[in-house]
């Protein structure tokens, strides 16, 4: 239907996650319509994110302008506690709590047998090397509380246990502000298991 540069743009946009052919077409026509400087700002942003942003050589978090990410470069962060996450975006979430002063390790996904994702596709070997080489005393497994994330956590626990470090998992519980009435049984069951003493 379309040829040349317009076709190429639609195809490229269509490769983005969550973008179907219809949306890709809409975006392409939008770009065609906007002033040239707006379109160039977008293309500059894409170029500079690829040129100036890399992955941290230690934890695989996003690193801006250097070999290390801001957290690995900060020597106030406790290197003995590692928070293991699936994705750099999860670091942002944990950082927002202000409750964690250790360092991170980004796996780059979770075990997903149905999609053919095994340990080789994740940064598991790098995690093992870090734990073995440095003075890590605790690994907090912060993978998602879904089937893939739980399987990944169980696998990592099996792998890390023999190294003699403390292995913890995020407690799973009820969303603050939610109603007990609407909680699903698995979440409620796990929350009950992870109950804590309350000082009265």
């Amino acid at each position, binding site marked *: 239907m379309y040829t040349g540069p317009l076709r190429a743009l639609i195809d490229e946009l269509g490769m983005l996650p*969550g973008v179907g052919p219809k949306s890709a077409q809409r975006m392409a026509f939008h770009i065609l319509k906007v002033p040239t400087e707006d379109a160039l700002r977008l293309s500059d942003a894409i170029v500079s994110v690829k040129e100036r942003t890399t992955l941290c050589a230690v934890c695989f978090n996003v690193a801006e302008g250097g070999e290390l990410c801001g957290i690995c470069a900060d020597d106030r962060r406790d290197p003995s506690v590692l928070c293991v996450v699936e994705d750099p975006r999860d670091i942002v979430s944990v950082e927002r709590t202000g409750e964690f002063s250790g360092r991170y390790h980004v796996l780059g996904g979770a*075990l*997903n*047998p*149905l*999609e*053919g*994702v*095994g*340990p080789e596709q994740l940064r598991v070997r790098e995690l093992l090397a870090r734990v073995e080489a440095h003075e890590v005393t605790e690994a907090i497994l912060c993978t998602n509380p*879904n*089937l893939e994330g*739980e*399987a990944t956590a*169980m*696998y990592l626990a*099996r792998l890390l246990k023999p190294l003699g470090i403390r292995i913890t998992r995020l407690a799973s519980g009820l*969303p603050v*502000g*939610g109603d007990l009435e*609407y*909680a*699903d*049984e*698995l*979440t409620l*069951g796990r929350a009950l298991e992870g109950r804590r003493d309350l000082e009265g």
Partner: protein
Amino acid sequence: MSLLRDQGVVLRTYRLGEADRIVVLLTERHGKVRAVAKGVRRTSSKFGARVEPLSHVALLLWEGRGDLDIINQAEVIDHFRVVRDDLDRVTAGLSMLEVADQLAQERHADPRLYAMLVGALRALADETVDPSLVPPAFFLKALVLEGAGPIIDACASCGEPDGSVELVAFDLTEGGTLCRGCRRGRPLSPDALVLVRRILGGGLASVLAGPPLPGADEVGGLATEAMEAHLDRRLRSVRSVAHL
């Protein structure tokens, strides 16, 4: 739109847009169904973990005009918590979900496949059962259901019965067990042959209830290869986590 009531096992899910998921289910009376769970990825979702793979649920579905239904309500019959909380059991369970997904047809009821899957997941959720033989048994029995069950009492190539020849190899594309003269495919030990016969001969419950049996690993490989030959594709869930 009409409202359907059924039970099903969640086979897999795909992200859809910002907060939704497409949930693929094997239902009892409507075969394989693809349905949208709206808002399921939000922490406030009423569906929560109910529509995660492995969950056995009672469903109320709006039947869609296209190939997608919409989940109106989902109530849990069984989460198979024991399966979820054990790495070996969960990977075994996922391999059965993958096979069920491949064998089931959309909107075409197959109550026997459904019953077999639910039964196999229940076996896997029994802590006294060794999980390693459950998927191979499910694969072999599913092949029989598909009309692709292997010959196990004679040579599939020359037809000579067991006893007059020794059955020493197995190849599903040849039809099953093979004698020394016709041998192809993978070698077959006497232990593994006995085990395959017990699984297919109605002795599965006693096989699973007992201590680990000799030949079990071999039957695992054989059943996986046979199912792969039948489906004409690799089983991702078995191959990707083979060395956990």
